[in-house]
């Protein structure tokens, strides 16, 4: 997190706000609720208390406007800049302006969710600047998350409590969302896949993109790429034959063509040829040597013939029977440059894809530039 120069903040924990006008995108009651809920996100973790004014000048004046709306920072029409807010101070200080050329929503993932945009802007109005943490609310980009499940990330909690201290009345949520550290020696990976030459390592709400041309992995929220793909996925693999990436969670599977979600998905696991008894897989990979797709269920795996579109007979088999030296259940799998990588916890086992001989046991963050 960062704060503004001089750590600008309100000198009193009692802060007033006023909704000066409304967007026609939503009923007024929905706007009121979104604004109130957004302020309460910050009140829950600090001693700050907010009082609504209906007339006069409040600390935080909230308004909707378009293009040049009188503050010297014109909006830019649909998309691009969604809103802005000023750090705590007199006059414009603390005010939050929303671009009326956006379509604000309160329920769905279409348009821009007013609660999410407002919560971010009120972070500025209270003294937080932008965070470099891609999982933080104060990251500059808009990413949809279900408002019902919204939980203020740890980075933002640390930032606002640096300015105002903790809420003396309520204990903090013991498990606020955090951002994974690629260099954590105990890092475990949820799933991994290639996608047209790049590698993607999934972890909780995030994935790292690793390009062969770059030694700097990029951490991104899953929702910022694919709002409909769930967090905490189980498995993923790229089918070279189908030129698609399949993403698994529970009994559902999604398909990507390039970066686009293929319509008609999610489908069921059984649509991939797996027996109906399999309710979840833990990893998957496409074996270029055999042309088969391997679906892992912890210590067992299935082999699917992509050409015949049917499961091979004699499966499931124990992973360690075929991949001698593999220890523990398979939690993620990848084939890359002639090697098969089977992840288990914080370890990654490197096998020759042709001979299935174990070469090395590496840390799971081997490809993440640590």
């Amino acid at each position, binding site marked *: 997190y960062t704060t503004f120069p001089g750590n600008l903040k309100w000198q009193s924990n009692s802060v007033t706000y006023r909704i000066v006008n409304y967007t026609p995108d939503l009923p007024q009651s929905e706007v009121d609720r979104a604004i109130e809920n957004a302020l309460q996100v910050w009140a829950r973790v600090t001693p700050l208390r907010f009082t609504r004014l209906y007339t006069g000048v409040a600390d935080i004046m909230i308004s909707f406007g378009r293009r040049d709306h009188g503050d010297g920072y014109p909006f830019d029409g649909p998309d691009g800049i969604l809103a802005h807010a000023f750090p705590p101070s007199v006059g414009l200080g603390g005010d939050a302006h929303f671009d009326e050329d956006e379509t604000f929503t309160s329920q769905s993932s279409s348009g821009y969710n007013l609660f999410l945009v407002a919560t971010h802007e009120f972070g500025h109005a209270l003294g937080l600047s932008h965070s470099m943490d891609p999982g933080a609310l104060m990251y500059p980009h*808009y990413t949809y998350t279900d408002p019902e499940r919204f939980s203020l990330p740890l980075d933002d909690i640390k930032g606002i409590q640096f300015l105002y201290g903790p809420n003396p009345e309520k204990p903090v949520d013991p498990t606020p969302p955090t951002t994974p550290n690629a260099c954590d020696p105990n890092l475990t990976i949820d799933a991994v896949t290639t996608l047209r030459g790049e590698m993607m390592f999934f972890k909780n709400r995030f994935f790292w993109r690793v390009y062969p041309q770059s030694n700097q992995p990029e*951490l991104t929220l899953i929702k910022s790429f694919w709002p409909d793909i769930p967090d905490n996925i189980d498995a993923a693999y790229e089918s070279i034959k189908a030129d698609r990436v399949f993403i698994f969670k529970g009994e559902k599977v999604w398909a990507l063509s390039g970066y686009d979600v293929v319509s008609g998905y999610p489908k069921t696991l059984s649509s991939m040829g797996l027996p109906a008894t399999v309710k979840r897989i833990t990893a998957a990979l496409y074996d270029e040597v055999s042309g088969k797709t391997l679906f892992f269920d912890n210590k067992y795996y299935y082999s699917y013939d992509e050409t015949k579109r049917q499961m091979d007979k004699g499966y499931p088999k124990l992973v360690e029977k075929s991949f001698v030296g593999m220890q523990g259940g398979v939690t993620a799998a990848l084939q890359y440059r002639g090697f098969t990588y089977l992840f288990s916890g914080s370890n990654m086992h490197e096998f020759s894809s042709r001979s299935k001989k174990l070469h090395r046991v590496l840390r799971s963050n081997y490809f993440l530039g640590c």
Partner: protein
Amino acid sequence: LPPLSSDEDENVAKTYLMKFYDLTNETDSDLHRGVHQMTLKLKEMQQFFGLEVTGVLDSNTLEVMKKPRCGVPDLAE
């Protein structure tokens, strides 16, 4: 990644950096000293967003610039 050369992309980047990274027009003395503000500001922006820091406008950097976002500068004035 290959650098982009289209004038339109350059303009998008310049406008973005002026809004969010305090890019100002380059002066003769900047050029004389071999300081290219655009490169420096691109590096700041790439570092902020966890992109590979090259100072070159590539497709990844441009993609990030086109995402919907908050209008407050990333580097506080």
